[in-house]
């Protein structure tokens, strides 16, 4: 059993990172993170584990609400800033776009693992799935994203190889 302050200290960065990719905006992610912990502080902590599954269940519901309300009231600012985006944000935007095209459940399962570092059991509890279903979904989503993000992945590989070569030269 953890109290709400303990849960906040242990998990708020993970929750924030999940929101950043799930909603694609840092400011909205901050607001939603605050909302999660506000809800936690208002209700008794209903968990026996370290609380991450419970927190992420709340977080996931907030993301679903957010997407529902955005589909009713789309934000025009994303379109306005499209052309003025700096080059280094292109990869991030491409990632957000690819994640946005995924089914909600696949996106959330993937982000909880890849960005927030939850284990399969915790994700299974948060998303009401079995651990086997989580494993299959994560793998399937990885393969799908790898195809959609082939160009940024190739760039990342090249950069990693260049860095590695530089390090090896420095060592010699």
């Amino acid at each position, binding site marked *: 059993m953890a109290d709400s*302050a303990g849960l906040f200290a242990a998990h708020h960065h993970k929750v924030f990172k999940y929101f950043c990719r799930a909603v694609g905006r*840092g400011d909205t992610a901050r607001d939603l993170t605050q909302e999660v912990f506000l809800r936690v*502080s208002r209700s008794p902590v209903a968990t026996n584990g370290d609380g991450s599954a419970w927190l992420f269940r709340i977080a996931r519901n907030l993301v679903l609400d957010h997407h529902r309300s955005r589909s009713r009231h789309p934000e025009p600012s994303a379109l306005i800033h499209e052309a003025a985006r700096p080059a280094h944000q292109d990869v*991030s935007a491409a990632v957000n776009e690819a994640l946005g095209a995924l089914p909600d459940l696949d996106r959330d399962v993937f982000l909880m693992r890849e960005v927030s570092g939850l284990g399969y059991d915790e994700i299974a509890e948060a998303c009401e799935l079995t651990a086997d279903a989580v*494993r*299959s979904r994560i*793998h399937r989503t990885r393969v799908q994203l790898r195809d959609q993000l082939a160009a940024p*992945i190739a760039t990342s590989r090249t950069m990693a190889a260049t860095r590695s070569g530089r390090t090896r030269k420095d060592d010699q």
Partner: protein
Amino acid sequence: MNTPYEVISAFLDDEPFDPEDLARALDDPTGRTLLIDSLMLRRIVQPTDVMPPMTAAAPARRFGWRIAAAAAMFVMAVTGGYLVGERRSIAPADEAPPPTRVVQAVPFTPAGGVR
């Protein structure tokens, strides 16, 4: 495992896997490419936004503090009122208070004199 490469995901995620399955998956160039691409994918999906310093919201505790403060003020007001009343009431409650002014009664005399 549903596909021969799912074991690569389990390995990447630090979940239980069969080493034999992993060896078989990595014998295949497709499996090796998938492993490297998955690592690169993990790198590029990390958000760049930084979490600003935040403190835990604790409205429930703040609400409790307010109730405690209000209760303390109420107790202090009641106690103070009691003590002030106690100090002012020097005479016992069942006795009449001492007179503060004595008025002397004078026999009535009409203006026209006594007939």
